[in-house]
């Protein structure tokens, strides 16, 4: 399928099995829930059949969860909060 610019569009038929390169293109979006329904179906079909992509997908999910869990979040200093409250309370 080509769009008006002549580039091949990345669309996947749920009936067709995608190859590993196509699956890798969609890997991060699959981890982040950013795939369309059709892409999702096609991707899932591929990783059920391809152990290598399945492994990579699981590793990518694990990496994301490590980042989410392990990076410490700090509270902004109270002095900063007070300064901003003050500046947004005075006429500009």
């Amino acid at each position: 399928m080509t769009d008006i610019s002549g580039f091949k569009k990345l669309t996947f038929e749920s009936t067709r099995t995608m190859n590993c390169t196509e699956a890798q293109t969609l890997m991060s979006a699959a981890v982040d829930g950013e795939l369309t329904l059709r892409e999702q179906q096609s991707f899932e079909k591929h990783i059920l059949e391809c152990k290598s992509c399945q492994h990579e997908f699981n590793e990518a999910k694990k990496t994301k969860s490590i980042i989410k869990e392990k990076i410490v979040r700090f509270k902004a200093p109270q002095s900063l909060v007070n300064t901003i409250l003050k500046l947004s309370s005075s006429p500009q």
Partner: protein
Amino acid sequence: MTTSSSQHKNTNTEKKTVLTAQEQQKQQEFQEEALKHINALYNYALHLTMNPDDAHDLVQETYLKAYRFFDSFEKGTNCKAWLFKILKNNYINKFRKNAREPGKVDYDLIKDFYHSIKDSQSDSGHDDTFFRSLMHDEVYQALNSLPEEFKEVIQLCDIEGFTYEEIANMVESPIGTVRSRLYRGRKLLRNKLNDFAKKHGYNTDD
């Protein structure tokens, strides 16, 4: 003449009252919409500047600018993404102009800063594999060692929870680029974490 002067005075007073009410509404809306994101902005500023004082200044300047231009904020859209974009632009103008590259600025200071709060970190208490036992320092170090374009999208996606569309807008690149940077960035990060695991004697091969 007296009547006219009095009318003029009344109009001025009314105008002043209206402006004050508008100003008050703006203040209230700004504080409700924007202030709740201060911790996220401060953390992002810390990652960018690697220096608590610079992060403090950067966030303060971001809010000052955001308040000044709050009228241009489109209500109903993501205020956090709007603030992050302002912060990023401020950072580029302020630090890149002065050629003060992140990572070269008081790295020891930020390291001490992170160390000082490390103990307050809650342990997730999941399974006992190496990855679950990784400390904040190691993950932070691994993330920080990535090239800037990979680190940035991982921070915005995995830590801040922005959508691809919002990230694409912030980094001024197409969504396809965001996808591919996340894919490659996570792969690089995983390799670095595997290196830590091997260093600690864990077998990471499934």
